[in-house]
């Protein structure tokens, strides 16, 4: 088997691919922050809400974490037009990703919400602290130690998961890789270059998150 690897065509398309990487990161950011907002509400409701709400959130989380994000998006993508709602593929994908990540983030943040209560008890024992000081010196450190590492990991998972958007025609990194490879017919070369780009951006993301955690929250997360 003789196959001559030829990276020239792919490298020419590097700026186009890197632009796609930016789109991937944007998708991950939207899914992360919108999901975290919903997830925070979910976590608070799951811990402090009335019984029926707790049950409903529990069912939501169980359903979304036990079915594939891809099929969830397929469902939206094909069923919404049926119900008379017409959205662009990107919007559809984003809605699906946010609903999905909200479920996982509810679980992650719930651990934080639960730990607040324990931290408050500890704070009650230490006297002479104002409400603000308690939040600043007791609760915040407690909660960040609890959730920082899982949140960082989940962000990386979202960056990798955003590649799924390609299957709906969104031109993020993997989508652009498909575009490039169908014109240059150098699939292996194209996708190996794209793999390296994913490795680099997730590595930079892990590194920055670890450094941010160390600097801002004194969380010593593993980089590797």
């Amino acid at each position: 088997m003789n196959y001559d690897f030829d990276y020239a065509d792919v490298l020419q398309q590097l700026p186009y691919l890197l632009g796609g990487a930016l789109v991937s990161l944007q998708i991950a950011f939207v899914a992360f922050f919108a999901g975290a907002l919903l997830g925070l509400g979910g976590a608070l409701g799951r811990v402090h809400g009335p019984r029926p709400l707790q049950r409903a959130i529990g069912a939501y989380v169980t359903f979304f974490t036990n079915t594939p994000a891809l099929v969830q998006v397929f469902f939206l993508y094909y069923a919404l037009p049926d119900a008379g709602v017409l959205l662009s593929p990107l919007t559809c994908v984003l809605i699906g990703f946010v609903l999905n990540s909200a479920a996982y983030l509810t679980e992650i943040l719930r651990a934080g919400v639960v730990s607040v209560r324990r931290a408050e008890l500890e704070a009650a024992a230490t006297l002479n602290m104002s409400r603000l000081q308690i939040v600043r010196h007791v609760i915040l450190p407690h909660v960040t130690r609890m959730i920082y590492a899982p949140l960082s990991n989940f962000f990386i998972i979202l960056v990798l998961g955003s590649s799924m958007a390609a299957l709906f025609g969104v031109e993020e990194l993997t989508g652009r890789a498909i575009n490039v490879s169908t014109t240059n017919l150098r699939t292996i070369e194209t996708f190996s270059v794209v793999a390296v780009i994913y490795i680099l951006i997730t590595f930079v993301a892990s590194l920055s998150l670890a450094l941010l955690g160390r600097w801002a929250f004194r969380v010593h997360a593993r980089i590797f």
Partner: protein
Amino acid sequence: MGTLWERLVLEAPEFFNSYNLLFLAEAAARTLGMTAIGCSIGFVAGLALAVLRGSRAATLAPARWLAVLYVETFRRIPFLVILFVVLYAIQPLFPDASLTAIATVAICLLSTAYLSEIVRAGLESVPRQQLEAAEVLNFGPARALFQVVLPQSWRVILPPAVAFAVMFIKDTALASHMGVVELTFAGKIFVERGFSPVLGFGAILVLYFALSWPLSRLGAYLEKRLAPARHP
């Protein structure tokens, strides 16, 4: 919404005919089969990598570096991209390879990377003195691994390994893009044949849930059950 409901009621008898149900069952079996084979092979290979990374011999240092490189690389590439690379690498070499087999190879590559990290954490949870005790009793390295270290690592390995399998049941959905006839692909076929997407993908979601949920519960149970005790 009234019309959607009417459409579902109208389609349901035709959708749930015996031929379609058999087709769905086969697709579910393929999803489960790819996950099971991928995770089993991934576990064995991951165990080998974990043992290699825990070794101390100076001559194995380059191999240890390769193992680290492999694990760190494959955990940072989207499964979809791995699928593409594996598909286009294998097809010219083995034109007769089935799509399911190719997808399973991709799953093994990825699961090896993730499971080796899980296994490594398990092996490292066993105190070094257990190994020293085995060494002075003349246990060889393999015997020490399989009779002393591994049996004590299960409680640390099993819960995250089961969680990983749950994740992989869902990730195999991406293989549908290559044309592997697993659950997600089955859903697409139904929708293409004119069934309502709510019915087609709804049924698929329910089936994924039926595969994944019991396993999630098992993982949660194991985590609670195995936490304190070290003996079986």
